[in-house]
């Protein structure tokens, strides 16, 4: 566990830079993590996904999978890859201040 500073705020992160406490998250932090990952600016569609991820994590205790996001937030898989290139599930969780999705086992 270590500390990182996003948007001037020190927060707890794990070895891969995922925030460990979702309550420390702010929209400004999201914007900075997004920028560091090559996403600038965050559009309304990004925010629709981020809002869903945060709500779902709160309800379920784990960050949602891409399939869950596409079904429940109504964002098609293709668009998910445009919004959050490479690993949309992982990146969306990171920007939303959530732990790394475990992909189950």
């Amino acid at each position: 566990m270590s500390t990182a500073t996003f948007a001037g705020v020190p927060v707890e992160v794990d070895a891969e830079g995922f925030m460990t406490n979702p309550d420390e998250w702010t929209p400004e932090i999201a914007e900075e993590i997004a920028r560091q990952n090559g996403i600038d600016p965050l559009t309304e569609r990004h925010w629709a996904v981020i809002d869903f991820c945060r709500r779902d994590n709160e309800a379920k205790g784990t960050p949602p999978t891409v399939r869950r996001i596409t079904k429940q937030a109504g964002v098609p898989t293709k668009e998910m890859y445009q919004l959050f290139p490479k690993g949309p599930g992982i990146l969306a969780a990171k920007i939303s201040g959530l732990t790394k999705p475990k992909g189950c086992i």
Partner: protein
Amino acid sequence: MKKLVILGGGTAGTLMSAKMRRALPRDEWSITIVDQDDDHVYQPGLLFIPFGMYERRDVIRSRARYVPKGVDLMLSGIDVIEPDDNRVRLADGTLLPYDFLVIATGSRIAPAELEGLTGPGWQKSIFDFYTLDGALKLHQALEDFRGGRLVLNVQEMPIKCPVAPLEFLFLADWYFHERGMRDKVELVYATPLDGAFTKPTASALLGGVMEEKGIQVETLFNAGEVDSEKRILSSWDEREIPYDLLVSIPTNMGSEAIERSDMGDELAFVPTDKHTLQAEVAPNVFVIGDATDLPSSKAGSVAHFQGGILEQNLLDAIAGRAPCADFDGHANCFVETGFGKALLIDFNYDVEPLPGRFPLAKVGPLKLLEESRMNHWGKLAFRWIYWNQLLSGRELPFVDSHMSMTGKKAPKDNPVAHVAA
């Protein structure tokens, strides 16, 4: 007469029927178990079929033989569950009322979820081995294979028996060695995970075995489409993997009956309390095995460990008490690594697979996270244990429902080896 209904007569349903028949008085409780056919397939054996190590007759038996006396087996499709009315509607329209329900409808492959997978190449250059039919056809395809690139793709997590794809590749490496053509075959593993496996210590170790055997790994590969004319598997982020033979682990989903009942999540797995195994939908409905949405592995060993917990919780719920037995996510899997060897891993929700001895400290005789011949014999012996002990709902010697730290060595830098929750 009170009624306990169990849906699904596979691993979990069969062992639960045996446990509950012993636990519930016959003059007060009837137990009914429903499945669509009489073919009980020993699914762990499907792994060996493509390589000719097992045949059809080694893995299939009559369900009826394993359902104990005093339990009614109904061979019928399940149409829908109606939890508000405490009843199940069967495919022929029969209504089955219940006081308590156990859902054990498992998981199935859903190849149509990947565009192009079931197109013209399906069962010609594209195969699965998660079904008996698929495994038998893949055996023929492997026998006919003259060399080229064999790609194994895991479409999406979670899948049942998450180590089976790795085992398939290890056995393929051995099989082509034996046939004297390993140098003519490229083996590629395309996975949506960021490593060979999910849990860190095991992932590093299994990744090492992959490298040793010359198996290429393509990580974070989320397949979006198969073009079976050009024989190309492509990902959503536009990476392309050409193949000569594609072995697919298609998306795993819960039963269609769960979908029809509108009781599942986006993969038709049933939302279940991860500790008590009670369904979220109603207090008199419980879920066991692959049908749950739990973060534990979907494996026969897990169904076995859950069985002990579920029995106590059902008895509590029947007696009007709050279910208090607590499932810890315990899983125990042999991992075939080829050339007559295997690894053994033992873990739960919180503790990742660790090295050490099992089930007894120092003595073993099985080694955790280390290849040995003894582990391979353990894996083969599992078939006997499955038919003769596991399905009858008996406890296995030395192995408890809850995971034990006995014999395990925690990594120094992380004494409890907790996987971040």
